[in-house]
């Protein structure tokens, strides 16, 4: 059965279609593999295979789902003690869309608490290990979903990206991760972190699989009034070259602060892009260096508001007390971890009387300037490309004592989140035996072009991730 586990999702679907593979056999092979995992990646594993129609578009190829997606009757804890054992009465639209398309949920995956973190070490239920090196982090916040795909526990998975939480773990685990245009996928049933930034997306081994999963997840949904769906159907990427493609390399995001090995791989891939016919030129995103500061006002501000709902009344844990106020404060003190408290405090401070204009107001203006920088750049370039993360996977515990050092992981991914534009990370070779990522960002709703460019580069790079699946 091991052979089956080496198939990409696209290949597995083709075998199911042709009658060479039973969806039930595929499920069993993956279930057995997932049950024996030792990375701490999974928070829940399904017992029984659901009924799958053989002609379903996704062929019954099982998927892993990040903990924070509400799934009916299945623990959905967002990595937090305050939601320990919570089984929602409904299922998130993105997950529902996948089930309907024939991708049943095999398991759920651990994450940083409420998606706040870049290493998965902020999970209340223990850290996830990187399958490339078990002394290192898988990245975060969707670390479990990334590690699960990299280790071959599932052929594909879904996560969420607020400031880099899909792209950075994809880079650190050597797989493909796509953050779509804001609004492409419904946020209904995603336990909210920062609502103006949160966006779901796929983790896969190949770019073609990412296109397939994105197409099945996306929809305009009456239950999320900010959802738009995609403007055109997602196509299977077929490009084999980059002729006529203009790549912009922002000097602000491709030099200072990036590890040498990551930068070398990035430069080498720019050379490959030229060989494939692309033009590569330096460009400017003058406000991008301020993106991280703006992000660490806007995201905590929105989180401080969103997480007000965890008060021990309607769901989750409660610490009993004699009066209502003490019940609230005691429940939240016991239920939230250190980073979540830090961000709630930061966001509440930034929104408080006397500080609102200096922090939140200014951050929103920086957001406008960053979006304008991208607009200007896309006047001259088809895509903006950067290293995905400034470094390779770091050792467990290396950055937990210094919140600012941890936040710097999002340096290259946050600007796209603030602008709401799509970006993909594809595996970009190893540095000292650890994966690095190459990020391709395009204008809003340019997913098809991004996937095509990523597909051409993927073929040219020929990354082999099988070492992590042993």
């Amino acid at each position, binding site marked *: 059965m091991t052979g089956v586990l080496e198939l990409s999702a696209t290949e597995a679907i083709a075998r199911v279609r042709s009658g060479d593979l039973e969806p039930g056999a595929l499920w069993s092979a993956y279930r057995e593999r997932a049950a024996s995992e030792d990375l701490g990646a999974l928070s829940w594993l399904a017992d029984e295979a659901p009924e799958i129609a053989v002609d379903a578009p996704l062929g019954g190829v099982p998927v892993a789902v990040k903990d924070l997606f509400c799934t009916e009757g299945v623990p959905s804890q967002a990595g937090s003690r305050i939601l320990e054992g919570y089984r929602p009465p409904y299922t998130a639209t993105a997950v529902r869309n996948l089930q309907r398309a024939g991708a049943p949920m095999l398991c759920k995956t651990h994450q940083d608490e409420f998606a706040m973190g870049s290493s998965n070490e902020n999970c209340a239920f223990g850290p996830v290990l990187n399958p490339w090196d078990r002394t290192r982090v898988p990245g975060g916040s969707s670390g479990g979903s990334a590690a699960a795909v990299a280790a071959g526990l599932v052929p594909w998975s879904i996560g969420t990206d607020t400031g880099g939480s899909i792209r950075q773990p994809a880079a650190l685990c050597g797989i493909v991760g796509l953050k779509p245009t804001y609004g492409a996928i419904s946020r209904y049933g995603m336990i909210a972190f920062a609502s103006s930034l949160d966006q779901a997306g796929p983790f896969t081994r190949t770019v073609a699989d990412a296109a397939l999963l994105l197409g099945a997840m996306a929809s305009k949904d009456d239950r999320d009034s900010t959802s738009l769906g995609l403007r055109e159907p997602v196509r299977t990427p077929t490009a084999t070259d980059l002729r006529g493609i203009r790549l912009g390399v922002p000097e602000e995001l491709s030099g200072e602060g990036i590890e040498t090995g990551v930068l070398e791989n990035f430069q080498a891939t720019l050379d490959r892009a030229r060989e494939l016919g692309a033009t590569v030129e330096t460009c400017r995103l003058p406000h991008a260096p301020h993106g991280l500061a703006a992000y660490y006002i806007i995201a905590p501000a929105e989180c401080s508001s969103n997480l007000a709902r965890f008060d021990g009344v309607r769901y989750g844990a409660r610490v009993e007390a*004699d009066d209502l106020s003490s019940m609230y404060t005691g429940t939240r003190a016991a239920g939230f971890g250190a980073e979540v408290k830090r961000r709630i405090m930061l966001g509440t401070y930034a929104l408080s009387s006397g500080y609102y204009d200096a922090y939140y107001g200014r951050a929103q203006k920086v957001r406008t300037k960053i979006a304008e920088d991208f607009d200007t750049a896309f006047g001259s370039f088809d895509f903006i490309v950067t290293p995905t993360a400034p470094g390779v996977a770091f050792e467990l515990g290396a950055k937990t004592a210094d919140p600012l050092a941890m936040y710097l992981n999002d340096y290259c991914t946050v600007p796209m989140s603030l602008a709401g534009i799509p970006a993909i990370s594809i595996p970009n070779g190893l540095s000292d035996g650890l994966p690095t990522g190459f990020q391709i960002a395009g204008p809003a709703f340019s997913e098809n072009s991004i996937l095509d460019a990523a597909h051409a580069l993927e073929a040219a790079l020929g990354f082999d991730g099988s070492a992590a699946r042993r």
Partner: protein
Amino acid sequence: MLSREQVLHVARLARLELTDEEVEGFGGELSKITDWIDKIGELELADVRPTSHVVEVENALRADEPHESLDPALALRSAPDAADGGFRVPSPGAG
């Protein structure tokens, strides 16, 4: 540096009960983070329009038609304390 009083004020607004250790820790940590964030104070932003949302949708309306909603019993199933078809909480006045 955020003072102890400032930290406690913010914690009250956020409905968080903090230990003495946390109060002290957050004072230093939040100051370090806000010092770093203060860099955006250097930018000239007077005439810039703020962005609260990247999606330009206005008034996302749907037809006002009755549809099935969450069953009350199901909605109460996850409550720490449900009684008489509602969520029971301690008295706001007591204590």
